[in-house]
């Protein structure tokens, strides 16, 4: 099914995890088929995981009381599959609590009976929030990368200081100069120095 709506946006694929069929039924009534391609999953545990991998939904919608929630949330942590935003719904009507839940990291939160118009905006917010979270994760990965490149540069500096009998400042400038002259990253220059050091049997603890 690949019908496109008026502005040629591809349909968003939703996977509805059926933990409580009454609730999911109400919810699917509220979803606008013009924007969403809805699929149902009634399984739990591993078979649900396979289903998610096969159907590659854009968004997963799940009841907040479902035992499968930790499993689906973890897809974002373990990187075993492409991360997905998980949208929750519940019969809780208390809007303040819903606000708080959304703040607490639930991508979005849909109540038992909800106007069609609202579902769409909730899902859009979920997507945006999810993206925000992905960006944070990317930042974490970048930080880790930065830390490890700093470590490499640090080690190369120490090797230069010990073997070329220069000060820390001189060692740093030396690495930076090679990097600039060869338009390389400092990290790569440091790696080269260290592999050379290993080859020469130098000490680079």
């Amino acid at each position, binding site marked *: 099914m690949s019908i496109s709506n008026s502005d040629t946006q591809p349909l968003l694929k939703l996977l509805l995890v059926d933990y409580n069929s009454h609730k999911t039924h109400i919810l699917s009534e509220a979803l606008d088929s013009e924007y969403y391609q809805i699929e149902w999953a009634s399984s739990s*545990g591993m078979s649900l995981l396979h289903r998610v991998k096969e159907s590659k939904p854009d968004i997963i919608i799940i009841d907040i*009381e479902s035992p499968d929630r930790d499993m689906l949330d*973890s897809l974002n942590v373990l990187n075993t599959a492409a991360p997905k935003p998980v949208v929750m719904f519940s019969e809780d009507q208390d809007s303040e609590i819903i606000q708080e839940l959304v703040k607490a*990291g639930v991508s979005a939160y849909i109540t038992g009976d909800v106007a069609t118009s609202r579902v769409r905006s909730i899902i859009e917010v979920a997507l945006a929030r999810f993206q925000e979270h992905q960006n944070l994760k990317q930042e974490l990965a970048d930080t880790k990368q930065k830390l490890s490149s700093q470590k490499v540069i640090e080690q190369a500096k120490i090797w230069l200081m010990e073997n070329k009998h220069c000060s820390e400042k001189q060692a740093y400038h030396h690495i930076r100069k090679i990097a600039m002259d060869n338009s390389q990253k400092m990290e790569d220059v440091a790696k080269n120095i260290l592999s050379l050091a290993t080859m020469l049997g130098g000490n680079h603890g």
Partner: protein
Amino acid sequence: MVNTLLEKQALTLGFMPLTDSAPLVVAKEFGFFEKYGLDVTLEKQNSWATMRDKICTGLLDAAQMLAPMPIASSLGVDGQRIPMITPLVLSRNGNAITLGKKWYPLLGEHQLPEGQPVNAEAIKPLVALKQQQGEKLKLATVFPYSCHYYQLLDWLTNAGIDLEQIEILIIPPGNMTTALKLGHIDGFCVGGPWNAFAVRAHLGFTGVTSSDIWVDFPEKVLGMLASWQLQNPQTCKALVQALNEACHWLESIPNRFEAAQILSQSQYLNMDLNIIAPSLLGSCLTFKDLPPRQIDTYNQFADSESLQLNCPNIEDGRWLLEAMQKAGHLADPEQAAAQLPHIYRPDLFQQYFE
């Protein structure tokens, strides 16, 4: 009994249907909450993430949490940064690694040495076999920010197993044994009663417990919002005192048997006594026809000699930060360590038991 000092008397606490929810269940059933003027409703939960969200929104006042959860929440590694604290350790140890029974013959000379744990060295042939088949060994646990997850990683890496060769999955505990039975996973690291369940059902063998990997480490803690404690200081004190008393009540073996009987009821674990009781009585079921291992501290709730066992100490928190870094959940444990005294709260614990 009405305690006029308490800011709040009616509390809702979240618990997971696991063996180490015993302190909460005991405090409720044997009147420890009541003794301290609290009227507590225990609410069974299905998911750790949902429990955390309910704490954040005030749907729950406090809960039995995995030891890393207040840290993960306070640092914002699992989404929003929500300051949480723990003033009490509810239990230490209690997890174990169970592998599918079909793998037992492959252990060769490493097959369950009597009374000894299985070193991960023993599973290298399994990993190699899976690799030949173009697959990875699949091991499951219940939550990423959990001791189970970090203990599983340590068990593997301590034996020099490359984590690239292993696929780690998160599955709800109730689906774990089915997944093992169907061969969807090759093993799991979980807390009681699920290891004993798998052995009793002859689905697998339990080769190593968490106390073999991380000795006497906090497993479950009492967790709550930092703001909740500030708003309800006297209530928090009463809650910690009641639960601490329940932990000490659980020190005696006859009491533990009584606790196992209550835990087996449908509103709690809803499971047979012969599955719940062994670990509480210090016995680790290993494999169908083999003798169990005696591990007195399999589920440790208190130490009659000292209060320290229930005190959340900063050193344990540091250990967790390093484990989180190894698992790729945290970039800089040094920076995070400065936050620890605001999360693990030995100061509160000491204040309550002066």
